[in-house]
């Protein structure tokens, strides 16, 4: 095997478990902040480059991430730039990948691990749920798991079976794991930096349907975004629309259409589905009195249910209408031919909004 573990690039791991949310001001001039027009997957790649250059303890591992640069090219050129000791193609075993990431993280490295598709995360769940999520608690702070697990997720790219699921609720129901979902290149860049710098395990779910959608100008300045705040993408008085991931584009579209009809939608991108920033959502609903939640995952037991439940607990008197959820059906993700039928559509979101607005 051609993985060279040279001692010369031994990372400094002094601050491995120290929280560190601000970019180091001095990174030896290696990187200059530049504005780059890029799509979401490129923004991820840019963040990985930035952080690997800034912090020697960051390592990248997974199936096909090194030589091939990832099946979606998210890890392109990392091996060339940072060497085979820090960018590792693993054998084909997700449980192993989970386990070695934890082992590495306990020793002061910061693994950024790729699970090729979220549909293949299951073999890693024992490690993620029983160990990554618990190491700090179990050792009363002696050891920690500062690791990021990246997984492309969601439907809409006409992929084969097991390549299109959205099971973020399983992860979000696991105390000790943070679950983060970007919905644009800018947020992908800033949230991934934050995830890597977080001293605890973060699951980073990448909506692959919009990997190469609309490009944005992203400033490569190493500036992280907060990990526990919803983003209010547009303000509005009439109804709160809550979503995350790829569906944010349909939601924006619907908000545009609504505006033409004089209806002001407040659009919230949850972004960090665990821990949930309910304060932002509650504040919005206190104003609008109406709420629709949209997500791709099956409706029952999805994160939309948790949000609606918290509204029923904390905002009952604010609510002028039932909280509606537009979500996937409670069935197995269909194969490509029928995935459009499964995926929530702009029309469904817009219908739900109309229904909520029409409510007496």
């Amino acid at each position, binding site marked *: 095997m051609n993985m060279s573990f040279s001692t010369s690039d031994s990372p400094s791991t002094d601050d491995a478990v120290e929280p560190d949310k601000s970019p180091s001001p001095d990174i030896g001039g290696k990187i200059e902040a530049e504005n780059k027009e890029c799509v979401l997957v490129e923004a991820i790649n840019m963040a990985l480059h930035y952080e690997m250059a800034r912090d020697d303890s960051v390592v990248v591992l997974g199936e096909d991430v090194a030589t091939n640069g990832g099946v979606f090219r998210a890890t392109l050129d990392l091996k060339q730039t940072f060497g085979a000791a820090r960018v590792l193609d693993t054998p084909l075993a997700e449980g192993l990948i989970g386990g070695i990431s934890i082992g590495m993280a306990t020793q002061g490295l910061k693994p950024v691990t790729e699970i090729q598709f979220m*549909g293949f995360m299951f*073999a890693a769940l024992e490690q993620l749920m029983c160990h990554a999520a618990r190491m700090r608690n179990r050792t009363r702070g002696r050891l920690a798991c500062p690791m990021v697990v990246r997984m492309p997720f969601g439907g809409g790219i*006409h992929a*084969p079976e097991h390549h299109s699921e959205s099971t973020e609720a399983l992860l979000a129901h696991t105390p000790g794991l943070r679950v983060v979902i970007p919905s644009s290149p800018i947020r992908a860049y800033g949230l991934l930096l934050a995830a890597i710098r977080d001293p605890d395990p973060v699951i980073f779910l990448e909506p692959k349907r919009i990997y190469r959608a609309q490009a944005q100008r992203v400033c490569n300045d190493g500036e992280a975004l907060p990990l526990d705040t919803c983003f209010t993408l547009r303000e509005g008085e009439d109804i709160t629309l809550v979503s995350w991931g790829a569906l944010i584009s349909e939601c924006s579209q619907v908000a545009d259409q609504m505006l033409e009809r004089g209806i002001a939608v407040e659009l919230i991108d949850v972004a960090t589905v665990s821990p949930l920033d309910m304060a932002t959502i509650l504040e919005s609903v206190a104003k609008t009195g109406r709420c629709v939640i949209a997500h791709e995952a099956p409706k029952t037991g999805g994160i939309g249910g948790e949000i609606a439940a918290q509204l029923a607990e904390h905002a009952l008197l604010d609510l002028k209408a039932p909280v509606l959820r537009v979500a996937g059906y*409670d*069935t197995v993700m269909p194969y490509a031919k*029928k995935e459009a039928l499964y995926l929530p*559509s702009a*029309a469904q979101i817009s219908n739900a909004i109309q229904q909520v607005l029409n409510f007496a």
Partner: protein
Amino acid sequence: MRGRQQFSIHFLQYLDPEGNLDLPLPEWTTDGPLLLSIYQNMVLARLLDQKAVALQRTGQMGTYPSILGQEAISVCTGLAMAKNDVLVPYYRDAPAQMIRGMSAAELFMYWGGDERGGNLNTASLDLPICVPIATQLTQAAGVATALKIKGEDSVVVTSCGDGATSKGDFMEALNLAGVWDLPIVFVINNNRWAISVPLAQQTRAPTLAQKAIAAGIEGIQVDGNDPIAVYEVISKAIERAREHKTPTLIEALSYRLSDHTTADDASRYRDADELKAHWQEEPIHRFQQFLHQQGLWDREQEKALQSHCQQTIDQAVEQYLAAEEEPATAIIDYLHAFLPYSLESQRSAIQHKDASVNTEGESR
């Protein structure tokens, strides 16, 4: 006190890459029609594979994993099995599935994103192919357990790739097969690559067959591009499984001459020279040479075969493209034997959404 236990792994090849004999032929090779059937099925498999790639390239099918160069393994698997045996295949086993009754149209359907491709339109108890790597192997062990409990004399044949041998399930299944004496044959298609990861980065074990030693079962390595050797090894293993309820692990050495799938570009990570070298070893040319040498095959026959295959494939494509769509509610109707009443409203919503999709066009 010192003690020592010895283990060994054998390698078997009859035909060298030029189709010349290395060893005296096994007895079953006097069965000319069987030899021809191996050849014909390999040719059909290759042509069908080309068509599948073409369908994908022209937007008529989804991502597809070609089996180019690995036809011998799957064809011999299919031919060596008895009808009531159970196949638990992986996704490069369409030839075996087809020998056992799957239609080419079903193959296209599956990769075209239509669940009916997994129905196999038959009463067979074969499992459908399995995307999550290696997970079929423990299921196969369960099938073998069931056959044994039921006292049937059928056996299970299951397959996977070289990359799959790194996943724990592989070893768990092998181990169970050993300790429960299961009537099962594991066939590894060692095509040397798992997407971009070469075998040398999967394991330090010089053979994959030796993984059998960990389970205390028989393991053997075979030239997977030599149909004589493959058929010999698989059929003997099936016989052993049937008669003695003992499992076997077979490592069939082959090579993935194509990209991993139509979504992959192997030139990014794989040496052109390596690929070229392996074209010299592919099974169809080799076997054709052998049949020629044995006086079993000529140009006329080849021509007839090619046109017969073409016709079969054209019909399958036609059938595939003409297939009526499943009703929208199919996406929920097969979830349970009976729709739970709590899902009834979702079922109507699906119907409703379908109607709106149909009238408004793709609404996303």
